[in-house]
């Protein structure tokens, strides 16, 4: 019955071939030579970065109307293996992610300029080049039509972010970089690659389809094993215990943490997991096997544990990192609930959390640039010195916690609805508890920044904000977080379309 309905739905759907997805990916990669060539003049170099960013967003955005109209855009690059092509396909899910990441790249680029110049960082050319490369990889993951292509861009992302994470080239960066590679490259080679080959061998295809390709071709036991391999193997999703790289990677310059570890890298992880659940395993098959509970359980565990760790973390970026780990699992949880609202919520959270979390990271960076402070315990009274920054921080925090009037509320609302729909009341409880925990580790920072006795305050004197280019981006993203509450399109529409494509309703 369901399958039939699905089929009808797909007949309505159109697929057109176009080179535009490829252009969207290449837009940032192609500016790299220009960036390197103009390494002598910083202004020109950063102009190229901005050109790449804007161009990329425009191309992605130009495909939005088609996707909203229910069209898929396809582009086959090369038939690299018999039966397995490097293929790009833009659907609602990918569009959602690409839109978020390419838009936030523009803002991050602006922020980078302020941050990197403010701190007089070294090797900025390398920094901008690899930044552009990693964005290419991110959009590539978003637009992948099959697991092989996704794997390619996933690995590209890992490698292109390594120099960014270890940008400082000191001992700490070195050990963090090691951890980063160990977890991410190790899992992708050790777990994803064999799992992918196993599926390819058993099914003869790796394409993402709405029903999944595994159903009926691989036994239930093997499927559960594969699910575990994928959920843990995409270590960028930081499901515990494969999360340790994320706090370590916070040694990176803040813009890197902001874009990559709030938006690109980690979201690539959860996006990949979501793709596996919807496109490879198929929701129906997972439901039949009852594996939803397994994934939900893993996610729930990660949510609670990471929130508890975040409570006790003193470094602001470290706290944000653990918060990110928890929020990522929301997305996995939402998708794994397999109920319509839950999935909408999960997918929406990719976007909503991105805006909220990037604001928080921007603020953390701005604080560091302006005062050099990195620990929460040293931020008492900072609201008086940097009121604008801390206001933005407050809004970002609200969004991440999931309170109105911020975008985060919308996604969390859907998640809650989803748990009810799926009848998973335990998960509902966990969502609520974790929201409380979120509030518990964010709000005190804000509270003590503004409301403290003068004797406690560590900052005084007149208002001294961070440089303009560090200040504007967080304000902008904070504003956008609020806007998204009132006007959650096109993300909501995209998420709904995506879920529709999967469940066929």
């Amino acid at each position, binding site marked *: 019955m369901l399958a039939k309905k699905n089929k009808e739905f797909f007949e309505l759907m159109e697929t057109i071939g176009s080179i535009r997805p490829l252009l969207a990916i290449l837009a940032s990669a192609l500016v790299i030579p220009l960036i390197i060539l103009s390494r002598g003049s910083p202004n020109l170099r950063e102009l190229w970065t901005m050109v790449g960013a804007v161009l990329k967003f425009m191309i992605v955005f130009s495909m939005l109307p088609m996707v909203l109209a229910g069209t898929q855009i396809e582009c086959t690059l*090369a038939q*690299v293996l*018999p039966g397995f092509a490097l293929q790009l396909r833009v659907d609602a899910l990918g569009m959602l992610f690409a839109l978020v990441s390419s838009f936030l790249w523009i803002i991050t680029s602006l922020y980078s300029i302020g941050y990197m110049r403010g701190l007089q960082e*070294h*090797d900025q050319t390398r920094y901008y080049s690899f930044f552009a490369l990693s964005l290419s990889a991110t959009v590539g993951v978003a637009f992948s039509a099959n697991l092989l292509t996704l794997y*390619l861009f996933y690995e590209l992302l890992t*490698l292109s972010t390594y120099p960014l994470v270890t940008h400082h*080239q000191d*001992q700490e960066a070195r050990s963090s970089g090691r951890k980063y590679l160990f977890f991410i490259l190790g899992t992708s080679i050790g777990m994803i*690659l064999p799992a992918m080959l196993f599926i390819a061998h058993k099914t003869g295809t790796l394409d993402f389809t709405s029903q999944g390709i595994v159903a009926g071709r691989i036994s239930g036991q093997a499927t559960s094993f594969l699910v575990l391999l994928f959920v843990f193997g995409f270590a960028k999703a930081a499901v515990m215990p494969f999360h340790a790289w994320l706090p370590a990677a916070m040694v990176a310059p803040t813009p890197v943490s902001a874009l990559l570890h709030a938006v690109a890298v980690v979201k690539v992880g959860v996006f990949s997991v979501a793709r596996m659940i919807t496109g490879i395993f198929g929701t129906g098959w997972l439901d039949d096997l009852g594996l939803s509970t397994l994934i939900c359980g893993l996610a729930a565990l990660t949510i609670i544990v990471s929130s508890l760790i975040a409570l006790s973390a003193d470094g602001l970026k470290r706290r944000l990192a653990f918060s990110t780990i928890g929020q990522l699992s929301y997305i996995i949880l939402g998708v794994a609930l397999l109920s319509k609202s839950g999935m909408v919520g999960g997918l929406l959270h990719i976007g909503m959390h991105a805006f909220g979390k990037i604001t928080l990271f921007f603020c953390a960076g701005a604080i560091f640039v302006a005062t050099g402070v990195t620990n929460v315990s040293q931020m008492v009274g900072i609201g008086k010195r940097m009121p604008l920054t801390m206001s933005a921080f407050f809004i970002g925090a609200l969004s991440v916690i999931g309170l109105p009037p911020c975008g985060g509320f919308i996604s969390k609302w859907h998640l809650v609805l989803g748990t009810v729909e799926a009848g998973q009341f335990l998960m509902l409880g966990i969502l609520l508890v974790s929201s409380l925990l979120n509030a518990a580790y964010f709000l005190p920072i804000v509270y003590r920044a503004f409301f403290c006795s003068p004797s406690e305050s560590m900052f005084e004197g007149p208002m001294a904000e961070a440089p303009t280019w560090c200040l504007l981006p967080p304000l902008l993203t904070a504003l956008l977080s609020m806007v998204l509450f009132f006007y959650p399109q096109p993300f909501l529409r995209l998420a709904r379309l995506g879920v529709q494509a999967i469940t066929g309703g």
Partner: protein
Amino acid sequence: MGGMTEHLPAIIVAVPLLAALIVTVVWWFNDRLCFPLSVAAGLVVCGASANLFQKVLTQGVIEYRLGGWPPPVGIVFRVDHLNGLILVVVTLVAFLNLVASRRSAEKEFRDKVGAFYALFLLFITGLFGILITGDAFNLFVLLEIASLTGYALIGIGSGRASLSGLNYLLMGTIGASLYLFGVGILYVLTGSLNMVDIAGILPNLWPSSAIVLAFLLCMGGLFVKMALFPLHAWLPNAYTHAPSVVSSLVAPLTTKVMIYAMMRVALTVFTFDFAFNQIAVRGPILWLAILAIVGGSLMALSQRRLKKMLAYIVVAEVGYMVGGFWLGNKAGMSGAVLHIINDAVMTLCVFLAAAAITIRTGDDRLSSLRGMFKRMPLTMAVMVLGGLSLIGVPPTCGFFSKWYLISGGIEAGHLGFVMALIISSLVNVVLFFRCFEIGYFEPFMRGGEPHSAPVEPGYGAPTVQEAPVEMLFALLTTALLLLLLGLFSGQIVTRVIHQALPAVLG
């Protein structure tokens, strides 16, 4: 010239041989001419092999009778999809290496440049000959010419090189003699030396332990030559102590060509049915391959010299190809053949990069990589690409051959092989990123003092001092090849390699 194309196979061996002789003569009068002459010969051979491959693709198997005698009376060249493909890659790799060798050859063999180029050309002549010959005994002769020149080229290095060279010579001679012995037994039993002819006669004699022994001797001899674990002992030292320009020639080519010879002997002489169904050697050889992969990788971990580490990686890679071939299914064999060409390019890439670094630092310890990303950015970029390819990261070519090998392992249900491949990939990650870390994090040292303040590696860093132009050209071309082979691997496999595999596999 239309008439000449039918003589292409002869040209492929005759031209480098002639060039070697002419270089020897010319060198006594003017040593400037050696390099251009060699390069010209390399170009001709590259063109000829590409042309020949094109012909094979359109016309199928090409047979060339030497002296006009039909087989089995005379010797024939037999070029099919398998050796046509490998020939193209081997000629290309040899050519690139020839181009890259210029500066370091002039530096290291100042007054023997002519002899170096002549030996170089004779070496590649031997390899080309092995690739195209259709005669079991002729293969031995060409094997010896390639080996003999290889011993000399390796032994010329400083320090322990001569000892490694002599060890290689002793082991190599045992290998070649075992092979010769195996061919002798085959000759006693069949009365023929032509590969195809022997294959036609052997099935009548099948339940014979003498054939099994002949098979084991041939394989054993080739295993020694290709350094399959546990017969690999000669390889790491030989490749480490050889002059770097020589190791970048010998390392990518020798083992690959020997693996080709193994395939040729197993498939064409003994036939697929015999090698895989009649005798039970598949299992043990597979386990040897697994040991080679794991052992080579682990040994590589404990090395502190770049070239020695790479040499142990070569040992592991031999395991890949041997294992893939002896999986005996279509995916595994395609993977093995694909890996021969990919690995030739990958190994060339990393060994050339190592040579470039050795030229600039005069040292191949891992610590000499310090600050190399600043000092030789392009070389290191190429090395990163080569490393990624050896790790097996898409879209470099190494990923695709690994794909076939692993799926072959899954298809055969041989979990040990799959696990070994994955472990070795992970170890390669550690190996290469250890190198990259040193190059990236540790500042360039000169005379024990950090050349630039470690706090600010960006400023006052040592000036860029890239590899010589010729070498850089070769490096960049190799890097390009790595990507191209990756992107076109689908076509290579379906259009070429599948034609080359025995028909039994479908």
